[in-house]
């Protein structure tokens, strides 16, 4: 058998051997032909090649910007994150269900009980309208999706669109290479990702897009002097105004840009057309947003734009007069008179406006921009937002989104730098290869040749250096990309509604206590129940719990918040009076003592005291401190140990052993044994506590019967 098999194999082998040359030849011939053909056809179309590469890179960046923001969806679920987005989600839901007019006229009685809130007049509707339009469009195209999915993915979608705008902006400012790098940088920039991950359904998500679009269109308008671009930028500005309160920065930055152009003597007709049409139309459009309204012509923050507008008119007028007057001396005199009168009239108008109250002075928010400590000293509410930030400046950067304005600029500038560097390096690297290709050209007597010759002497070093630098640049850029992805996945992709921790065996433990509590409220309390909690949780309670809250994250009424702060920091009987007067049925507190969750109400408590004390002087911060120290153990201040917040947080906690080897009542968030283990509640009763004790809900008892 074996003997027989061998010749068969042999024949097969020889056959294959014979066939190999035959098959080898034909591909060779073909491959001879193909490069010739393809090289020639391709060489004719270098431009198209470049276009193809550019478009595919842009598409990849577009997709990258989208998918890098999906960590939280993949890791948790498609859900809305944090606090403010829940309000946006709730209003979007209302908008899609009831329509735009109902939305515009919505009086929300579920928040700020008993005051209520006029939603249509106190919000920037851009985000909700955008999401609703996307939703309706998809519905129209017969994609049966839930509005939640639209809301969750709005921010990544707009981040992708921002990369496109960044590309065009970079192209407009520098060249298409810079545009591509700008698009890529914007796509993975952590500062932006933190505001636009899937589920972070907040104004910034679309506002950054609108911001960049406005700038791009305005620069385009200035460069071309085209009315169409100016109008487009006005509409982009309108979109920005409708989306976010940060539009104030645009309306200050664009005049600044114009002013710089004026001072550097680059005034032109194009600038005049661009700014005037953008400002006038943009202003008229912005005033259509009810939350902005006449502020746009009255508040101090908008005066710069108006001033530059009038300045441009004066400039134009002077130009015209100069054109008419041939005598320079006469013109000089005229100039002097006009400028002094213009400045005088402007100053008087501003002064009269300020004095009569027609022009409102700058708000605290704007002062705090100039002096970050302003907020801390004067507005405890603003300061309380930033309680976890270490220093004033960084907290200020964080809170007022200065980074958000800086990062597009930073991205653009670094994109230009990077692309220019790489371009130069590749030029150097390529020049050498060209020279080697052409070989013996050195003899030619052109200046180019001599420069090349001089170049050539230092070339071995230069070329290698260029290649090394290029490799270094690519290494750094790829490192940056992986770093950004890592930061996104580690730091910015947690929904903060669901908490995740590692269990003892390395498995993932999920604390879903917030939703447990909110759903309990939704299903097991009367539909008209009023819930009192610290304002952080207001939006979530209305959106997920569907119950009326006393205060929420829209901190427009300081007194109301202070009342809640006062109730939380009073003794139970005093608090009961306040709660009765506010018609409170349930009290919700967040408590991290069992799980070691540190951003709970006990850690926020001093802010309640401060804000409460800011309005009601009966609450004094020192009463809650011992030697200026904030503590909850045995050494705590007696008022601290008996105030409502302490009692509600630690009710029956003294009986619980949280950690092995520690006494019962050991608070894991603060690492101490609590000071008051025997807490009795007289006016409230425990209604619900979640499985990890993170949220505790108490029912306010009805008043006792009187005989």
């Amino acid at each position: 058998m074996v003997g027989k098999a061998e010749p068969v194999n042999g024949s097969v082998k020889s056959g294959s051997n014979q066939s190999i040359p035959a098959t080898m030849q034909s591909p060779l011939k073909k491959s001879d032909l193909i490069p010739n053909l393809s090289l020639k056809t391709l060489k004719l179309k270098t431009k198209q090649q470049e276009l193809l590469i550019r478009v595919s890179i842009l598409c990849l960046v577009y997709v990258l910007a989208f998918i890098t923001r999906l960590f939280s969806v993949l890791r948790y679920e498609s859900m809305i994150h944090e606090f403010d987005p829940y309000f946006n989600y709730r209003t979007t839901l209302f908008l899609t269900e009831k329509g735009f007019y109902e939305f515009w006229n919505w009086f929300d009685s579920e928040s700020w009980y008993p005051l209520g809130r006029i939603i249509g007049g106190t919000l920037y509707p851009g985000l909700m309208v955008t999401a609703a339009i996307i939703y309706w469009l998809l519905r129209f195209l017969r994609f049966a999706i839930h509005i939640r999915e639209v809301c969750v993915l709005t921010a990544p979608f707009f981040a992708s669109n921002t990369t496109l705008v960044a590309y065009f902006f970079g192209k407009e400012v520098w060249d298409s290479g810079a545009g591509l790098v700008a698009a890529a940088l914007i796509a993975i920039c952590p500062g932006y990702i933190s505001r636009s991950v899937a589920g972070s359904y907040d104004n910034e998500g679309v506002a950054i897009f609108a911001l960049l679009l406005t700038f791009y269109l305005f620069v385009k308008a200035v460069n071309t002097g085209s009315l169409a671009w100016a109008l487009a930028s006005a509409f982009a500005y309108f979109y920005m105004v409708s989306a976010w309160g940060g539009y104030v920065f645009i309306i200050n930055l664009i005049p600044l840009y114009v002013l710089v152009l004026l001072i550097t003597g680059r005034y032109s007709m194009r600038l005049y057309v661009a700014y005037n049409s953008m400002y006038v139309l943009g202003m008229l459009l912005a005033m259509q947003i009810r939350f902005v309204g006449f502020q746009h012509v009255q508040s101090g923050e908008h005066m710069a734009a108006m001033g530059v507008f009038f300045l441009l008119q004066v400039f134009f007028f002077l130009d015209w007069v100069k054109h008419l007057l041939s005598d320079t001396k006469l013109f000089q005199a005229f100039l002097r008179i006009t400028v002094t009168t213009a400045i005088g009239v402007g100053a008087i108008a501003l002064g009269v406006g300020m004095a009569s109250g027609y022009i409102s002075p700058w708000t605290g928010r704007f002062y705090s921009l100039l002096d970050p400590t302003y907020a801390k000293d004067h507005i405890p509410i603003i300061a309380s937002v930033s309680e976890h930030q270490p220093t004033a400046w960084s907290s200020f950067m964080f809170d007022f989104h200065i980074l958000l304005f800086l990062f597009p600029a930073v991205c653009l500038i670094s994109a230009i730098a990077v692309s220019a560097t790489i371009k130069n390096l590749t030029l150097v690297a390529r020049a050498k290869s060209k020279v080697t290709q052409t070989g013996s050209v050195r003899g030619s007597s052109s200046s180019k040749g001599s420069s090349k010759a001089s170049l050539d002497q230092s070339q071995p070093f230069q070329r290698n250096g260029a290649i090394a630098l290029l490799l270094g640049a690519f290494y750094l850029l790829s490192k940056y990309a992986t770093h950004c992805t890592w930061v996104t996945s580690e730091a910015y992709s947690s929904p903060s509604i669901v908490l995740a921790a590692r269990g003892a065996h390395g498995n993932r433990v999920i604390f879903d206590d917030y939703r447990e509590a909110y759903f309990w409220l939704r299903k097991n309390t009367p539909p008209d129940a009023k819930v009192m909690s610290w304002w952080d949780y207001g939006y979530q309670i209305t959106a997920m719990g569907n119950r009326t809250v006393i205060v929420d994250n829209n901190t427009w009424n300081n007194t109301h918040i202070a009342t809640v702060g006062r109730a939380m920091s009073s003794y139970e009987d005093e608090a009961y009076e306040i709660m009765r007067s506010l018609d409170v049925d349930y009290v919700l507190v967040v408590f991290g003592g069992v799980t070691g969750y540190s951003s709970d109400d006990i850690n926020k408590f001093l802010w309640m005291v401060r804000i409460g004390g800011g309005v009601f002087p009966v609450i004094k911060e020192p009463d809650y401190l011992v030697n200026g120290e904030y503590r909850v153990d045995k050494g705590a201040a007696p008022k601290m140990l008996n105030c409502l917040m302490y009692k509600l947080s630690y009710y029956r906690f003294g009986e619980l052993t949280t950690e092995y080897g520690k006494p019962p009542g050991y608070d894991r968030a603060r690492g101490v044994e609590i000071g008051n283990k025997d807490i009795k509640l007289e006016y409230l009763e425990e209604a619900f506590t979640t499985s990890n004790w993170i949220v505790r809900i108490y029912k306010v008892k009805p008043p006792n019967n009187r005989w």
Partner: protein
Amino acid sequence: MPPALTFYSVSLPKGLGKGDSLTLDVLVVFKGALQPFPEKITQADIQLVVFYETAYYLSPYAVKVQSLSVKLPDARIESFTKIENTKIHGSEIKYGPYENLPPFSYSPIVVHFEANQPFAIAQELVREIEISHWGNVQVTEHYNLVHGGAQSKGEFSRLDFQARPHVRGASAIRHLVAKLPPRVHSIYYRDEIGNISTSNLWGDHKKTEMVIEPRYPMFGGWRTAFTIGYSLPLQDFLFQSDGKRYVNISFGSPVNEVVIDTLIVKVVLPEGSADISVSAPFPVKQGQETKFSHLDLVGRPVVVLEKTNVVPEHNQHFQVYYKFSSLSMLTEPLMLISGFFFLFVTCIVYMHADLSISKSSPSYLAKLQWDEVQAAVQQVRNIINRCLMIHDKLEASLRDLSRTGDVQACKSARKAFDGLLKDLSKDLKPLLASLQTSPQAAQILPKVEELVGKERDLQERMMAKHSTVVDSYEKKSSGREIENRVALQQQKITALRQEVDDLLDLIDEI
């Protein structure tokens, strides 16, 4: 005799003759027959219920012998009505036997006992069964659950519940078990505010069990709502008989402990189904509606079946018959394809259409002129490229010459190329002229002219070189001599060629 009675008539398979006997097993399931008493309990209390029944079998016929046994879940019995012949064995109470009872004899009894099993009542359950002929049955079930036992009052203490869950909170619903068909996949468990992470799933080839825990333990009177959804393979549930397809799927809820007040089963058939009929093993209210899902034009027909008071015994299969042509499956992919096709077509049309409003505005004219200039420059580039190709061919002919020594062939080739080059330069002239007249070309014109000049220079040198080489061959000079003679020319030609290439690139970039 009790105040209200409902009569059910049973038709026998065949008439009962005199003296014959027949055994009937009658199974009756009562819902809501157990009343919690006391009606409100605290977390620490156990749940007690009362059960009202008659000791004698209520019948319009005379009863010869009859007995009743009441089986209770727990051993603890608070009280029960004692009449004659009552015995108790552990958790079972026996009444009877009683003999020779007249029609409609009636003796109410009351049993009061501990029942800590949860009273899970789905006030409304909507099951949506969506058939996709792409191989999937998607079942979505919306539960609206309430604990129907004794209402809880007072505090709910998590501490007590965690420390001694079976004493403090004995009657709470902690979890429910859903028995799902085998090969089920893509299971989810969520509610209005998102996914619920407390569920477990295991299964083998016979069944799949899903343990679902509500977000919070449910005490008496507490409510919750959730949705579970799962996908099933189509071939297990869709069959065909005489030209019709039918779905054969279970009617009730997969959660066994749940008693349902109102059950609505919706069967969503694929778009284009017709001739729909339902066969169910028990009477149900039928209706029809339309549902719009992904890419639907006319909507999918939905069969709506409604039944009140559903217990686990109703968990039987029912059938929906319908006609559906397999070709209709293609409509949705075709729609998508044509949608994208039209998108691209509009893109192409947009790119090629002239959409400017004013045909006489200066910017429009300038654009037109610029297009012309670009076209002319492109043509110039083409011509130059062709010239360069001819140069290459000339070089090639020289190489042939050095290999073969065939001077005649080389000369004839040269002649042909000369003619070609002349034609090309003729073509070039009008283009250059048009570029010179156009104001838009002012920027690009010097470069183009330089390019043309350089190319002409190159051409001349090429010719010179060619003539030199051919001459030398005719004179039979040695190869080395020829090379020496040509070397200088060759250098210049390479330099010129390089410059021409650079210029071409430059113009390309403009």
